[in-house]
């Protein structure tokens, strides 16, 4: 008498909760377990200030060989031989301000405000002076030994090569602020009014590129590789181009700024250090880092007491380098300036909260991955199951097919086929290595060439069949004509899939047949590059995903086939006769009369197969598909929390199978035929 006793028992009685709510409860439990715990956490700067021995503003920094050089006002020059940790004095290069610098291979060039270029050709060589005779020059790029390109106000572009200055100024006379080359041929120059100019012949000719914003003053550009070009404007915009030659430019909609197109700060320099990492610098102590090509930009924390304007970066690789700024500031980093979280240095995964904090993303990814292959696997498996079951029950024998032809036609067909068969036999045998029948191992010699052997076997079969065709009598009474070819095909298929281990099927299909790869290539050929996200990626971005779906579907289809076939044969034969007697075709009756009834009958056993499919999907880990079990293993690899990891994985599987079972039960209820069958209900 549960209802008579009030209190806690009644409230928490599991059996009194209806099944829909039970799912909700279990799913929420899973979610609660995986919600990140809030934790005390502190962040410190990734930059350290180093002594530069000067108070002059430093304007440019450049890597030259293993050294790094900085240049500043009044000809100030400093260099470091240990990646920027300690600095040495160098005699001043003239007394004008040094405003920009660049290097390529062993050559380095520094631009001073009075139009003089100081150059060093070769490591540890002497400085040479070249006078450009120009004023108002803002940017410089080295394009080879003894050659540079400089840009300046009113669109000025000058190229120095063959010991001569060439005026390359174009008709676009906005002030140019920066120039950058990728190698010695491809270059970009940027400036006011959104000006972007590009060259592909080392700076001799320049073409205009449409700017995404004609009002921005582009102050710095980086030509990382032919697919990655970035620039920043003084109003904090990030521009990028991924088209070779920089033909199309776009403004980055910055995710971390709510998809605004500006960082809401002034920028002066951009440094691209890898295909995804970008460093930004600007006045007012702005340093920023993006790990994803500018989608998200995090502002760097600065060392205490530093609040200067930053002018230029020089990075050795994507982690080690310096940034220079006004008042002689040089900051050094060996972690790309990234803010460092402290407090989680050695996470205590024994604490369930911290374990979950680490593992929840992995678990969720695994959960989604499993659901993905399960859903598609079920659809594919069921389709294959229905088709196979129909093939297996098809009454079509060779006799049915051939009846309408005359005996002579059949004999002719036999003769034709026997020619094909003999040709296959001949070609197959000729592919065999010379038989040296000495010992047991040579018995298997023919298998040495699988294609030859396959041709041999196929040829033998075709010859055997065509002999019966040739010998056919009027009534087609030979044993061959009773054979039901569709049925045989389906039987071979199901026998094969039901008599080999699923784990081997996974490996054979993925690594042996390379089915996933082939499908992916086919899809790429039809629909193009899948990219890294979006619907294309979902469907064919991941080979293991494709292989997993097909393995699960093909395997499950073989099992479901038998179940569905059983259900079809449970339908009284009179139903087929009734369908045919009103003029429906065999397939029409199957589709409209037999299958609708048969599938209703086999929902419970098919449900079992589908649950099996979910559980079997865990084997997809052997081909490297990151479903739940594999994620569980990965979780353990870093956390060593075996109990919690496998526990969460198990609950996740339970949620999937249980929801599936529930859906099937609901389906069974809603499709029940009134007045038919004793089913009692769920």
């Amino acid at each position: 008498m549960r209802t008579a006793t009030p209190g806690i028992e009644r409230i928490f009685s599991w059996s009194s909760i209806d099944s829909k709510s039970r799912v909700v409860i279990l799913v929420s439990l899973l979610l609660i377990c995986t919600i990140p715990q809030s934790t005390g956490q502190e962040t410190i700067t990734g930059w350290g200030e180093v002594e530069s021995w000067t108070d002059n503003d430093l304007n440019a920094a450049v890597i030259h060989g293993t050294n790094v050089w900085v240049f500043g006002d009044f000809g100030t020059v400093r260099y470091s031989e240990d990646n920027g940790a300690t600095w040495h004095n160098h005699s001043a290069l003239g007394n004008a301000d040094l405003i920009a610098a660049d290097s390529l291979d062993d050559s380095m060039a520094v631009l001073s405000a009075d139009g003089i270029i100081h150059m060093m050709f070769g490591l540890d060589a002497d400085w040479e002076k070249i006078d450009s005779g120009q004023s108002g020059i803002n940017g410089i790029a080295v394009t080879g030994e003894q050659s540079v390109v400089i840009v300046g106000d009113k669109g000025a572009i000058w190229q120095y090569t063959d010991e001569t200055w060439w005026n390359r100024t174009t008709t676009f006379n906005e002030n140019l602020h920066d120039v950058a080359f990728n190698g010695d041929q491809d270059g970009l120059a940027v400036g006011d009014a959104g000006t972007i100019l590009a060259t592909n012949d080392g700076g001799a000719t320049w073409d205009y590129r449409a700017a995404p914003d004609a009002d921005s003053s582009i102050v710095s550009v980086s030509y990382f590789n032919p697919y990655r070009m970035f620039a920043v404007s003084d109003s904090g915009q990030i521009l990028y181009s991924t088209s070779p030659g920089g033909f199309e430019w776009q403004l980055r909609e910055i995710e971390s700024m709510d998809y605004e197109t500006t960082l809401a700060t002034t920028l002066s320099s951009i440094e691209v250090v890898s295909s995804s990492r970008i460093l930004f610098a600007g006045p007012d102590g702005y340093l920023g880092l993006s790990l994803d090509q500018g989608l998200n930009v995090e502002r760097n924390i600065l060392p205490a007491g530093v609040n200067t304007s930053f002018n230029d970066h020089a990075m050795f690789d994507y982690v080690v380098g310096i940034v220079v700024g006004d008042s002689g500031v040089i900051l050094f980093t060996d972690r790309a300036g990234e803010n460092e979280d402290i407090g989680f240095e050695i996470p205590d995964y024994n604490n369930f909260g911290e374990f979950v904090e680490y593992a929840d993303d992995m678990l969720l990814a695994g959960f989604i991955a499993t659901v993905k292959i399960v859903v598609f696997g079920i659809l594919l498996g069921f389709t294959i199951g229905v088709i196979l079951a129909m093939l297996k029950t098809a009454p079509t024998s060779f006799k049915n097919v051939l009846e309408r032809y005359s005996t002579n036609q059949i004999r002719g067909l036999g003769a034709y086929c026997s020619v094909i068969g003999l040709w296959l036999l001949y070609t197959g045998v000729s592919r065999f290595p010379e038989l040296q029948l000495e010992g047991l191992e040579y018995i298997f010699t023919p298998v040495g060439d699988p294609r030859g052997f396959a041709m041999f076997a196929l040829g033998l079969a075709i010859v055997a069949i065509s002999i019966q065709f040739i010998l056919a009598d009027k009534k087609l009474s030979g044993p061959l004509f009773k054979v039901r070819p569709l049925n045989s095909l389906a039987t071979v298929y199901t026998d094969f899939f039901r008599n080999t281990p699923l784990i081997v099927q996974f490996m054979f299909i993925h690594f042996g047949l390379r089915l996933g790869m082939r499908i992916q290539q086919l899809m790429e050929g039809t629909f193009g590059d899948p990219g890294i996200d979006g619907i294309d990626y979902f469907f064919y971005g991941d080979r293991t995903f494709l292989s997993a779906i097909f393995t699960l579907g093909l395997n499950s289809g073989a099992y479901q086939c038998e179940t569905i076939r059983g259900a079809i044969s449970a339908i009284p034969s009179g139903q087929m006769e009734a369908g045919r007697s009103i003029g429906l075709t065999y397939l029409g009756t199957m589709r409209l009369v037999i299958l609708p009834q048969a599938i209703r009958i086999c929902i419970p056993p098919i449900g079992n197969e589908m649950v099996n499919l979910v559980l079997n999907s865990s084997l997809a880990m052997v081909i490297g598909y990151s479903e739940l079990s594999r994620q569980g293993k990965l979780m353990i690899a870093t956390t060593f929390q075996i109990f919690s990891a496998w526990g969460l994985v198990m609950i996740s599987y339970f949620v999937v199978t249980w929801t599936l079972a529930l859906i099937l039960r609901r389906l069974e209820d809603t499709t029940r035929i009134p007045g038919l069958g004793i089913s009692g209900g769920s």
Partner: protein
Amino acid sequence: MPEIVLSIRDLHKMYAGGVHAVRGVSFDVHEGESVAIIGSSGSGKSTVLRCINRLIEPTDGVIELRGEQINTPSADVNRVRSRIGMVFQSFELFAHLKVVDNVTLGLRHVRGMSKDEAEKVALEVLGRVDMLERVDAYPGNLSGGQKQRVAIARALAMMPEVILFDEPTSALDPELIGSVLQTIRGLADEGMTMVIVTHEINFARDVADRIVYLDHGQVAEEGPSSIINDPKTERLQKFLSSMHEDEVPEAIEKELVDGNTGYGYVPDGKGAGPRVR
């Protein structure tokens, strides 16, 4: 003489097991005529009927529908079947479809009618068999007699040139037989061309224009319905008298009328009785 709708010439059927079930049966069915096939169990009545709409292939012989041979590999079997209606002993309604959908299925998928058109036709024929109240019921919830009337409606809806009945009442309780026979009689009166295999001798005599008596796979006697009262051959005489012996004794009949049923099923030698689920 009206046109010959169906003509059977020297029909033979040898089953796979070696049973020579039909041995040279010939008869004609004329436009608007109802022919009753009678004969003892196992005499090949069902076999003849099933050969006619090619549910089984005859071993030999010619079957013509309006002068056109239909038992050749080149004849379009689906078209032939849609011109010949068939009513089965065990109803064979489509269990997953409502009454009205049972009737519209063929109209929509064979005749290519739209859903609305098909439903109009279906309601009309369901009216003719007096099943209008139960159009939305599922077959599982109908009585045997109602099921058989729906099956007749399903055959009728296709507007067949001839309807074949294979013992339409032998799976029914005695008190349900009446309504089905009434329906068939109505069709006969409307001039429907029909071939009826039946054990109801009285019904055959009252409704059929002609009787074909089969014995051991051969036509032993053929003639107008009067031959039942006045059989020419000894074999038919014997058959008819055995039928009278078979008639339900009065005591049991009383029980049946009182409602203790379950007797109305006559085995047909194939074991295809009413299915109890």
